[in-house]
């Protein structure tokens, strides 16, 4: 089966000479949910911006569902941006249209959808995140958790191959955090979740990848990585006080 995402030997340095990616390799199978962990400045965001061709040119290759990311190919990059749905950290950056429905319709409209087909897409995406009744509201009047859910809908409306979430649990209260995890778990898409929230990674993703100093330093079952205290401390990752990943994983397995 063609992997949803295939990254091979990806390098990137910023114009000021800062090297952000040092040869990253990552393959994600369709339907997998993978957490991308790493300290601040590890290159996580840089990697994410390569997935849809916003950054490029440092060497290496990215393929989404088999299609290579090539910013020079305008038609190809439009398809790549449909396939890779990035949910940015601050929903106020993502939601810029005056109403929720118009914002969710922005992506599919860029794909050329119009009229009833567009409306159906908008309703489908808003239903998936349980926000259909807010379709005519202005994003500013929603709670932060609701805005984050609408932001997820804005990329779901493009029927992506892979959903990329940048810190999905940040700034959410515990109830919104749980609601979002229930929604994400119910979505039939491949997910790459960038996060510092290790318990959230354990809850949602069977597999985790640790990125540090522009390199993948670990890739395996989330519970194994989180149980390795040495590995975590070497890469400036910390579990919340009192959190036992093995116990939590057992509870999680029992609860299903």
């Amino acid at each position: 089966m063609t992997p949803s995402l295939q990254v091979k030997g990806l390098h990137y340095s910023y114009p000021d000479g800062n090297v952000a990616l040092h040869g990253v390799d990552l393959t994600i199978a369709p339907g997998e949910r993978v957490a991308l962990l790493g300290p601040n400045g590890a290159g996580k965001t840089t990697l994410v911006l390569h997935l849809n061709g916003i950054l490029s040119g440092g060497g290496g290759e990215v393929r989404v569902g088999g299609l290579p990311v090539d910013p020079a190919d305008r038609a190809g990059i439009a398809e790549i941006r449909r396939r890779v749905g990035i949910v940015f950290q601050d929903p106020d950056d993502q939601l810029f249209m005056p109403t929720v429905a118009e914002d969710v319709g922005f992506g599919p409209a860029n794909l050329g959808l119009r009229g009833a087909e567009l409306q159906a897409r908008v309703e489908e995406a808003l239903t998936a995140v349980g926000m259909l009744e807010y379709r005519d509201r202005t994003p500013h009047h929603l709670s932060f958790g609701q805005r984050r859910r609408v932001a997820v809908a804005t990329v779901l409306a493009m029927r992506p191959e892979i959903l990329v979430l940048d810190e999905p649990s940040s700034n959410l209260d515990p109830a919104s955090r749980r609601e979002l995890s229930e929604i994400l778990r119910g979505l039939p898409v491949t997910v790459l979740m960038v996060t510092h929230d290790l318990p959230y990674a354990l809850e949602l993703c069977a597999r985790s990848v640790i990125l540090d100093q522009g390199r993948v330093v670990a890739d395996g079952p989330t519970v194994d990585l989180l149980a390795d205290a040495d590995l975590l401390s070497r890469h400036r990752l910390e579990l919340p006080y009192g959190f036992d990943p093995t116990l939590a994983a057992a509870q999680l397995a029992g609860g299903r």
Partner: protein
Amino acid sequence: MGAGHAHPLYLDGASAVHRMAPEVKVAATVLFTIIVVITPREEFAAFGGYAALLAAVAALARVRPLWLAKRATIELPFVLLALVLPFAGHGERITWLGMSLSVDGLYGAWNIFAKGTLGVLASLLLAATTTTRDLIHGLDRLRCPQVLTQIATFMLRYLDVLTGEARRMRIARLSRGYDPRFLWQVKAFAVGVGALFLRAFERGERVYLAMVSRGYTGRLPSPEGSAATTAQWAAAAVVPVAAGVIAVAAVLQ
């Protein structure tokens, strides 16, 4: 469309004027205002006719006179300026209640007051019956350059976000004992404005990035919904046409 997004000048309703397509209302308001402005100031009867026309539209839109009057106070600074003219004007003077007033100045004051008030009332009626969102749609359908409508769309969305940011920064300043009472304390405020500008600039970059990620290529999708019908254009044309007839009749008399 746009329900739940109210601005303070919008009066929710379901009248015939509310239901009219925004582009015909914008066109009618602009034409009406132009006719008002080019009417010679001596034609007092014509201005009475224009006021009657606006009153009829207000009645049709179920906008109460008091509601309009309160919001029309925005023109007060201009009216105050007009009040100076009769005293400062040159030429022929008349005496009224012991004050020596310039005739030319009186006409000038009347000119500003009448035309200003009519223009403000017409705009208020447009705003009262059209949501901001629909106004932008209307401008878009009238082939207003997309750069302008896009800027207006973003302003509509981010004004609240920026105000919120400015308020939080102010509260954070006050919480650290900042109490600007003298001019030399204004520095923190000025630095705050600079920080706000930088934040807005950075946010603009992030918003653009998020838009490009969803396939933005320079054009916002054109708004859904049907364009105005001929009947709506005809109905909205009644106001500027009637105003035109009044103007011509007054001048030819």
